[in-house]
């Protein structure tokens, strides 16, 4: 399948076939007009997997109507949530740092389709959608962003510190790259306890240059730990483009002795396939590097307009050609799994859900003062004292 070249102004990204060709291929296979929910479909993902020291997974991805509709629903909800967060930040309901994920939804959603909640995920600070993917609610995210009691960390973590212990989501980390050794530690725990599970340690193209990543990679490879080192390459480390910070921006190949796969991160099915393959591989062989070729529409954070280091044409070009939600929409419509009206209904429901969660988050109470002193230690040690800020009185004395 020949790649069709797109305008050079798109920048140095992988050229994509349009979905029209993919849909045409699907038509050739003669799918029933209304497939049942669970009936297996096979979709060929258009972009081949680029690999380093390993054979690529097949481009034929097994899926189902239910899964594709699920992808659409989840990604749309994530998108709406992030856009709502943008508005709330601008009206000062959300303060501090706020790193939005819109554009990258396919990575979370595709990854979760290949894993279960006994597998573990750890990521950096662009974690709102990761939290949703791990079974969190929009209310938990919104309330946390606003610093209210019903937030997933009771308002004490904020945007960068969202966790879900039950579903093995280890956060939500503020310091670039520091989550990778933690993730290898979680994988160590899985191997130590002989669990049939993997850990996905996610990081960005900026973090890919951190020394501790290579240290952790060495250890993971040495001890055969089931860790999927996953680079969400959105091509900019805050304001610095990948070609200005990495001598070799082929992040999937930088594992050297660890094999790697580069994936079209805007294609939820390709992401799912890569993680399905990766999980099987890691459980047998140890670490694997995955690079998700993705893109963020917003700037690095709400403090960054995102337009001083890239052109508006580039951003709108990606939105037009590669938007993950639009791809799934076109696929669903071309396979006649749902009508445009059905999808509109899903969108409306998503928007309602997000709006309700925002309202509920707004009316969630502020954390009470006692929470300031909770969770500093587990089972507070004797002699531990906390003062009010004026040092005039002892607030907690044990």
């Amino acid at each position, binding site marked *: 399948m020949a790649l069709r070249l797109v305008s050079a102004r798109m920048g140095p990204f992988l050229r994509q076939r349009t979905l029209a060709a993919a849909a045409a291929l699907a038509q050739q296979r003669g799918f029933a007009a209304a497939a049942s929910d669970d009936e297996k479909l096979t979709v060929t993902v258009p972009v081949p997997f680029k690999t380093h020291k390993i054979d690529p997974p097949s481009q034929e991805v097994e899926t189902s109507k239910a899964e594709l509709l699920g992808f659409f629903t989840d990604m749309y909800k994530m998108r709406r949530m992030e856009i709502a967060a943008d508005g709330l930040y601008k009206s000062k309901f959300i303060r501090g740092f706020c790193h939005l994920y819109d554009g990258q939804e396919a990575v979370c959603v595709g990854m979760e389709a290949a894993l279960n909640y006994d597998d*573990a995920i*750890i990521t950096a600070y662009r974690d709102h959608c990761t939290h949703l993917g791990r079974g969190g609610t929009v209310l938990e995210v919104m309330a946390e962003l606003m610093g209210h009691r019903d*937030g*997933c*960390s*009771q*308002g*004490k*973590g904020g945007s960068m*510190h969202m*966790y*879900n*212990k039950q579903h093995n989501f*280890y*956060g*939500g*980390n*503020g*310091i670039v790259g*520091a989550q*990778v*050794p*933690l*993730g*290898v*530690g*979680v*994988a*160590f*725990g*899985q191997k*130590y*306890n002989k669990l049939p599970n993997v850990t996905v340690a996610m990081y960005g193209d900026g973090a890919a240059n951190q*020394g*501790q990543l290579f*240290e*952790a990679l*060495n*250890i993971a490879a*040495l*001890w055969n730990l089931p860790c999927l080192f996953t680079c969400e390459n959105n091509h900019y480390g805050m304001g610095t483009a990948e070609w200005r910070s990495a001598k070799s921006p082929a992040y999937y190949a930088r594992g050297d002795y660890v094999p790697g796969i580069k994936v079209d991160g805007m294609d939820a099915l390709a992401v799912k396939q890569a993680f399905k393959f990766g999980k099987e591989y890691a459980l047998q062989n140890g670490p694997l590097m995955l690079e998700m070729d993705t893109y963020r529409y917003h700037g690095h954070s709400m403090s960054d307009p995102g337009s001083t280091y890239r052109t508006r044409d580039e951003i709108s070009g990606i939105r037009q050609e590669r938007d993950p939600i639009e791809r799934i929409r076109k696929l669903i419509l071309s396979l006649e799994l749902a009508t445009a009206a059905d999808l509109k209904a899903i969108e409306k429901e998503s928007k309602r859900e997000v709006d309700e969660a925002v309202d509920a988050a707004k009316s969630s109470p502020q954390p009470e003062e006692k929470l300031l002193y*909770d*969770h*500093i*230690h*587990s*089972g507070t*040690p*004797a*002699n*531990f*004292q906390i003062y009010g800020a004026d040092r005039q009185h002892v607030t907690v004395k044990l």
Partner: protein
Amino acid sequence: MAQLLLFEALREAILEEMERDCRVFVMGEDVGHYGGSYKVTKGLAEKYGDWRLLDTPIAENSFTGLAIGAAMTGLRPIVEGMNMGFLLLAFNQIANNAGMLHYTSGGNFTTPLVIRGPGGVGRQLGAEHSQRLESYFQSVPGLQMVACSTPVNGKGLLKSAIRSQNPVLFFEHVLLYNIKQPIPTGENLSSLERAEVVREGKDVTLLTYSRMRHYVIQAARILVSQGYDPEVIDLVSLKPLDMGTIARSIQKTHRAIIVEECMRTGGIGATLRASIMEYLFDELDGPVVCLSSQDVPTPYSGLLEDMTVVQPGQIVQAVKSMCTKESVQ
């Protein structure tokens, strides 16, 4: 009772805890096959294998992070810094992750790990190998810090630290590994938050920890032979400080001298002085005196090195200046 050297006592603690709880494991450089550079883990690899005595590459930042991640899953790692000074490379992991994950996750995760190793000024080890990390970490909320000084408290504290649900920085001293002491049999856990009254007295409270405890005891012997009656307290718990025991002592003696190996600026003594002044001002007959190391990188020359740390003679002198014959009843 068996006489054990301090490194043997620490090894016994680790062995007993590993035997008792299969979640406990040790990681660090040369802790496994080599047996540990100070022999604290000697023989353990043969007994427990490579998965519980992990020989790491020289990568403190990442293996400390790995230990913290493993602790988050419920395992109980003991991280050995071959020299505590090397853990400066892991400062971010210790401060931001070990210290704060319990809080930022709203109580979701705990990090029950022990980070242990030798620190302090040794014999001509040079500036980079003579670090006192307790100064740097004392501000980090969420961390607990203890310093052992004898085989008995070493074993008791290490066992408690391993069982604690909190991250504990366990400070050993390069020069104390061969101290010998009879060790009672049985569990004998030491509290991680209690200071140890080494010698009761009524003239002055001498507050110290780690290697300086032994210099203080030396000085105390000289002072006792000259008619003074010092009370010696080994802080043991550096974070949080056991202000209860300290307060009871100062209420009795009304005089306090801190003897530490930290640098003068920003050390444990600096915090302790402030606390004593704040709580016990009315109990004091005079300002708290603090004897600390000089604010210099530790020189290689033995002569100069001795000048950077407090010597027993200086402790004796400080007590005598504070406790003039007239003021001591």
